């Protein structure tokens, strides 16, 4: 039907709308300007909706104009290119153009001034290659919607494939006051625009292609018509009356097609695609010229500018540079706005850069945009409802927003509000309605995210609990099984048969249980997989592009998990039949056991009777008959006992041996316990000693003596332990001897060493204290270094290390460790187990160092919070520091010896 492009399409209308002063002429007085290169270009990585791009360059890289400097990060993301040639000087947080006034990661490019292009590779044969390839190319060229939200164009086009398109609408309405960037773009690049539209039409194949343009742009309309006429294009131009917000996507669709986009749906759902004129030109430049999106048209306007105009500006140009270019008058400037007066937002700083979606910089004087009048109460006049282009009930929404009734606000379709500001504009009570809606929307979004997160946390918490419970149950079951098995095996042979059978019998059901569980798991996994697949399908349909990737990952994971489970299940049955075999093997010992039992019972019975008789004998000592009986019984008993021992010998050879062994092991056990107790005593005394050392108590000597005695005892016990045969006979005597024994030469030497050690420690402590004192007095580093203390400290530390080294040397020679203070536990372990891997020792020592450091940190923190116990905490800190130093010294030594060893090899 539309054979002639001059034909205007049917124009419908939408509800509401307002007619604010247009103020568009100011910026159209001057021709298109081209500002000079700024000193640096600031390129935010998040210029589009979706995840931020990933930088491809690093600081110091030289880039050419048009080179890719950041690539997309996931599906809903975009590429970024160098707007000019130069050097990457930083990748850092910079203020960005955002209503929050926050910073974000930006690539900073310092231009070299030569503006050399990289090699351009246009997609000249775009008609012949697959559409997917063209879309991918557009994505690589960094093309995003330049109208508002910055939705990656290829994603939007892909979404349009879902339904056959009836209309492809090019949005040239530009309804917001002041802005003329699109107007200027159409005038300057008419042919490029039409070519771009043709490329896009080739990609989407819509029934109708309509350019929607407001009737306040006669020059642009005329230019368009001329070009379209020349090309005999089927593209229609629909001139719509000037009314704000006819440039809203849904409003323009309603104007041009009469169709309303249902609440919560996208235009693509009703077969319509909208693109901004800027995007169409960018598509043309990318495909036919090979130029990525690196510049855009932006309006510089407002009373505070001497030369308001449109400029073609490189992305990343700081706003301040543009203000200079348009000669702003700082005195007049009261508010700097990015975007228009209705939907734009105030900029706190002029340092922010122009991004792909910046269509206007409004430098307004106070007169132009007076500060908002104070808010009054809603008078329920209904003017907002009259103005709302989305047919909402703004005063109701305001009410719900104020009272935080989010659910009701959602029921009243808050999310259909396009934040056009028409309601605020008409409100006689000057209520900033849009601000309320924006706040409520973000609150609802936050709450949704919080619910998602808390649900996830709950799931994970419950999963963890279930896992822990299962683990506990398993442990408990194992423990029970062990409990059943152990006593019958060692103490009572008669029980061994049934007891041994029990766990094996239990094992069979356990395996079937497990296979059952596996089957259930598989079933659950499969249903989960199905659900995921459904979600994935849904996400694909609804273009929830962000979800698709993660869902796909989940699906593959789930599939893997199921495969694993099935494999396990397949292995299961082979395990099951093996169980009964063990059972039968064990059963053969049963008859012997029975006999043994009988014999044992006999022995017991005879024994009881014998005892009774013996008692009687004591009462009546001369009864000959009784004596005979006893003798008879005694022979019986002996016989019975013989049978028992014979039988036990036949059942299991080791049972016979076990009895004498038991006696020895009992003694050994006792010895071990004694040794442990002695060791604990040593530790206790050591602790006391340390405390005494810290507070310099006079009892130190006495405590040392105690320590030595305790250690002696512990050592002896350990020696005894090492030699169990001898121990079983003379353990008692030895321990007694140990108590009484005078200190031998070795111990004397140890004592001397210990005293030396203590002195060295005290020296360190003193030096440290003095250094600290100096620090507290506010002396700076240099002064402290100049004083004698640091060198003293070092000396003392060296001495300490030397002493410790000395100590460890003889200690390894003497079999028993002489000293075992808490801070050298690791050290003594080194001596005790010389074969222990050096590497593990080093690791252990490293851990000790870390622990000590952490403790010092903790103590320092405590010191800050409770200055009243500063003294005791300081002492603790000192002690810990000593420990730290020792550990460090040891560590050094260990590392040293390790390197030595390596060298020796």
């Amino acid at each position, binding site marked *: 039907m539309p054979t002639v492009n001059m034909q205007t399409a049917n124009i419908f209308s939408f509800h509401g709308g307002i007619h604010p002063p247009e103020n568009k002429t100011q910026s159209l007085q001057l021709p298109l300007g081209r500002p000079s290169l700024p000193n640096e270009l600031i390129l935010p990585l*998040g210029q589009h909706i979706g995840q931020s791009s990933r930088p491809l360059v690093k600081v110091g890289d030289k880039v050419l104009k048009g080179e890719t400097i950041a690539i997309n990060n996931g599906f809903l993301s975009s590429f970024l290119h160098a707007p000019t040639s130069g050097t990457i000087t930083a990748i850092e947080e910079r203020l*960005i153009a*955002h*209503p*929050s006034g*926050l*910073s*974000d990661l930006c690539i900073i490019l310092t231009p070299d001034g030569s503006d050399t292009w990289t090699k351009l590779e246009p997609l000249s044969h775009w008609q012949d290659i697959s559409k997917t390839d063209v879309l991918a190319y557009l994505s690589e060229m960094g093309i995003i919607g330049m109208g508002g939200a910055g939705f990656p164009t290829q994603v939007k086009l892909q979404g349009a494939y879902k339904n056959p398109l009836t209309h492809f609408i090019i949005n040239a309405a530009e309804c917001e006051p002041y802005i003329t960037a699109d107007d200027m773009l159409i005038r300057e690049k008419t042919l490029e625009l039409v070519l771009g539209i043709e490329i896009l039409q080739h990609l989407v194949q819509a029934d109708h292609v309509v350019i929607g343009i407001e009737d306040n742009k006669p020059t642009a309309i005329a230019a368009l018509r001329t070009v379209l006429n020349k090309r005999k294009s089927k593209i229609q131009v629909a001139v719509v009356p000037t009314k704000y917000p006819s440039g809203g996507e849904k409003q323009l669709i309603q104007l041009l097609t009469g169709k309303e986009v249902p609440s919560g749906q996208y235009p693509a759902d009703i077969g319509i695609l909208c693109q901004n004129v800027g995007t169409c030109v960018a598509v043309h430049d990318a495909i036919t010229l090979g130029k990525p999106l690196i510049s855009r048209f932006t309006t510089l306007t407002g009373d505070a500018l001497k030369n308001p105009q449109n400029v073609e500006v490189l992305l990343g140009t700081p706003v301040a540079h543009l203000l200079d270019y348009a000669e702003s008058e700082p005195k007049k400037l009261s508010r700097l706005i990015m975007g228009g007066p209705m939907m734009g937002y105030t900029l706190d700083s002029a340092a922010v850069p122009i991004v792909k979606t910046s269509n206007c910089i409004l430098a307004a004087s106070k*007169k132009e945009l*007076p500060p908002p*009048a*104070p*808010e*009054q*109460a809603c008078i329920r006049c209904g003017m907002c409802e009259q103005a709302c282009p989305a047919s909402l009930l703004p005063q109701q929404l305001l009410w719900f927003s*104020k009272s935080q009734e989010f659910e009701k606000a959602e029921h009243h379709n808050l999310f259909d509000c396009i934040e056009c500001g028409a309601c605020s504009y008409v409100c006689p009570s*000057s209520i*900033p309605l849009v*601000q*309320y809606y*924006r*706040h409520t*929307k*973000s*609150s609802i*979004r*936050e709450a949704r995210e*919080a619910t998602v*997160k*808390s*649900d*996830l*946390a*709950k799931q*994970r*918490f419950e*999963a*963890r*609990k279930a896992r822990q419970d299962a683990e506990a149950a398993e442990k408990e079951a194992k423990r029970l099984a062990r409990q059943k098995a152990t006593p019958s095996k060692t103490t009572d042979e008669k029980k061994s048969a049934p007891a041994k059978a029990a766990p094996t019998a239990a094992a069979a059901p356990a395996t079937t249980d497990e296979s059952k569980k596996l089957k259930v798991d598989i079933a659950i996994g499969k249903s989960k997989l199905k659900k995921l697949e459904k979600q994935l399908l849904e996400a694909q349909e609804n273009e929830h592009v962000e979800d698709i990737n993660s869902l796909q990952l989940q699906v593959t994971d789930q599939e893997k998990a199921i495969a694993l489970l099935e494999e396990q299940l397949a292995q299961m049955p082979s395990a099951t039949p093996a169980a009964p075999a063990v059972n039968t093997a064990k059963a053969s010992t049963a008859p012997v056991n029975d006999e043994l039992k009988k014999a044992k019972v006999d022995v017991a019975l005879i024994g009881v009777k014998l005892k009774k008789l013996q008692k009687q004998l004591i009462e009546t000592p001369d009864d000959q008959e009784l004596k005979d009986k006893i003798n008879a019984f005694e022979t019986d008993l002996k016989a019975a006992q013989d049978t028992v021992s014979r039988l036990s010998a036949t059942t299991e050879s080791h049972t016979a041996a076990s009895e004498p062994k038991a006696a020895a092991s009992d003694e050994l056990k006792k010895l071990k316990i004694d040794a442990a107790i002695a060791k604990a005593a040593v530790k206790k005394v050591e602790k006391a000693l340390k405390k005494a050392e810290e507070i310099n108590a006079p009892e130190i000597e006495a405590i040392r003596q105690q320590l030595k005695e305790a250690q002696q005892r512990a050592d002896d016990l350990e020696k005894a332990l090492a030699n169990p045969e001898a121990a079983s006979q003379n353990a008692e005597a030895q321990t007694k001897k140990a108590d009484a024994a005078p200190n031998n030469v070795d111990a004397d030497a140890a004592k001397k060493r210990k005293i030396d050690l203590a002195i060295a420690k005290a020296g360190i402590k003193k030096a440290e204290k003095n250094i600290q004192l100096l620090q507290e007095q506010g002396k700076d580093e240099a002064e402290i270094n100049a004083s004698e203390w640091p060198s003293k400290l070092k000396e003392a530390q060296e001495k300490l290390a030397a002493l410790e080294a000395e100590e460890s040397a003889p200690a390894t020679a003497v079999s028993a460790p002489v000293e075992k203070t808490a801070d050298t536990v690791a050290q003594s372990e080194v001596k005790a187990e010389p074969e222990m891997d050096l590497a593990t020792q080093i*690791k252990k020592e*490293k*851990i000790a160092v*870390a*622990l000590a*450091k*952490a403790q010092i*940190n*903790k103590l320092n923190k405590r010191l800050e919070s409770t200055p009243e116990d500063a003294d005791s905490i300081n002492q603790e800190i000192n002690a810990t520091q000593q420990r730290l130093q020792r550990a460090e010294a040891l560590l050094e030594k260990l590392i040293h010896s390790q390197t030595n060893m390596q060298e020796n090899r």
Partner: protein
Amino acid sequence: MLTVLLAIGILVLLSLIFGAILGYANVRFHVEGDPIVDQIDALLPQTQCGQCGHPGCRPYAEAIANGEAINHCPPGGQATIQALADLLDVEAIPLDGDHGTETAKRVAVIREDECIGCTKCIQACPVDAILGAAKQMHTVIADECTGCDLCVEPCPVDCIDMVEVGVTAKTWSWDKPQGIAATSINIIATDRQAEAVH
């Protein structure tokens, strides 16, 4: 007499019929579980931090259902108290300071080169948000971390920090306008301003 008996008979019949319907409805539409506990649990932040004095959010939900005060959850803060008050139709009370104060959202971050791989933090984390193995470096999955603080104390080398989750441009949200009270002192302020402009 007959009419009286008839009336009684009809009434008895009716009561039997309705009784049967009610009884059937009770069985047919029986609700499993304790819906009020579920509803309360859904409002709690699921941080599982135990600051309320219970071993998790659900036990506290159960305690609330049994009459415990609704202001013991610091991570939820005033918003949760408000939501609980709405649900239970009780007065919203300020947060009980004994259980802690409302803080900005935080996540745990492990200074990885200091970690000795003791796995203590893993055992403490209620939502399995820490990844690691014995003697290996550990790390926190920030997205899963609820900021409950429970992993900080057990760490023997003190290498876990609670870091505030700052607002980024992507998570930022609009402020609420100040409202009427803040600015409006006299009713005709608008007129005055209009004068000042012209």
